[in-house]
């Protein structure tokens, strides 16, 4: 029986975030599917693992963590080895990387998730897209990407001079956005376009994509 488990739903962006982190750090784990359609995440025994009823959950022996960003941070700080190092030892450099993790959460994710809901999930469920919402959220995302364009002119990756969780945390939303017309917002900005291409071509991310597409 695997000591390390990840409980989640493969197409959920939060589960994808945790999967990316596990693969980037070359950790072996068992993936346990949670049936979101059946509402398993809102009942016991799942609620004992994840009290707010969210996926994913990471378990390693007695250590149980919920919230994908927490799992991502823990993996990068606890399961370190020189080959897969994605944190900085220097507090100032790590402080900068940590800032951009929160930027994704507070600035990138809100318009990104609304766009994904309108352009990917609603059509999938036979619901009409609200074009007015799409316009509003694209405008918000464009402003965020202007800040990213400026940042990436001065830094190879968002968090610093190497790939870190600050970049990884964007991958799940990027996976969906690149399959919608919103892709043009990324293509229109050269630094952003190059950064997306670089991080999305990482082998660990390809493994996550494979799992999502197999479903």
């Amino acid at each position, binding site marked *: 029986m695997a000591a390390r488990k990840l409980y989640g739903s493969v197409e959920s962006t939060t589960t994808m975030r945790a999967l990316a982190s596990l693969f980037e750090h070359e950790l072996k784990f068992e993936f346990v599917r949670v049936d979101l359609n059946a509402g398993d995440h809102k009942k016991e025994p799942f609620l004992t693992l994840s009290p707010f009823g969210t996926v994913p959950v990471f378990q390693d022996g007695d*250590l149980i963590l919920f919230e994908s960003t927490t799992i991502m941070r823990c993996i990068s*700080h606890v399961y370190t080895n020189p080959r897969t190092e994605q944190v900085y030892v220097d507090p100032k450099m790590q*402080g900068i990387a940590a800032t951009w993790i*929160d930027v994704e959460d507070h600035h990138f994710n809100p318009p990104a998730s609304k766009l994904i809901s309108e352009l990917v999930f609603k059509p999938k469920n036979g619901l009409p897209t609200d074009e007015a919402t799409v316009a509003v959220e694209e405008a918000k995302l464009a402003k965020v990407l202007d800040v990213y364009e400026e940042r990436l002119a001065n830094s190879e990756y968002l968090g610093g001079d190497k790939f870190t969780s600050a970049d990884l945390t964007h991958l799940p939303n990027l996976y969906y956005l690149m399959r919608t017309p919103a892709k043009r917002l990324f293509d229109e900005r050269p630094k952003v376009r190059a950064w997306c291409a670089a991080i999305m071509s990482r082998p660990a991310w390809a493994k996550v994509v494979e799992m999502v597409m197999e479903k």
Partner: protein
Amino acid sequence: MATPVKVYGPAFSTAVSRVLACLIEKDVEFQLVAVNMAKGEHKKPDYLKIQPFGQVPAFQDESISLFESRAICRYVSEKYANQGNKGLYGTNPLEKASIDQWLEAEGQNFSPPSSALVFQLAFAPRMKIKQDEGLIRQSEEKLNKVLDVYEKRLGENRYLAGDEFTLADLSHLPNTHYLVNATERGELVTSRENLARWWGEISSRESWKKVVDMQK
């Protein structure tokens, strides 16, 4: 002698006060730099250089600038690990993971509904903005569900991440302070036994009392 760090923004801002509480807990000398938000100072080019999204707080420690209050708190706790409250962000990676867990829960689950309620009930009237009754009801409903989870957690642990006060508890101080003292929904916290006990303890810390003084 080290230059004091700089925090930009008004002390009454919940995000700014989060950083101030952390600096005081860690005994880090700081200078609070006023940002005149009424005059739009936070949207001007000079400010956008240190906070490109035009929000408060911004933070500088010698050569670097940071923003996002929780990232600043993590940085301060790491950089100044050996002074002030040494256990604030844990003393080993597993303690840190547990603190990160409840810091994240604060940001994802507690903050959205509590900030909305605090803004609608305490700030909107002062700013002569019409209150959104639907949003108030929705936020209260969400917050009730979140606080039920907290009530259970605080029945099993003295503080959110374990036996000691940590960044995870600290992060909740700003919104809870306004909820309890500036709105009529304080009983969301005070009517729940474990939450009331926890709130009493964390809000009576010297560090928080100093921040409240700065807000006056």
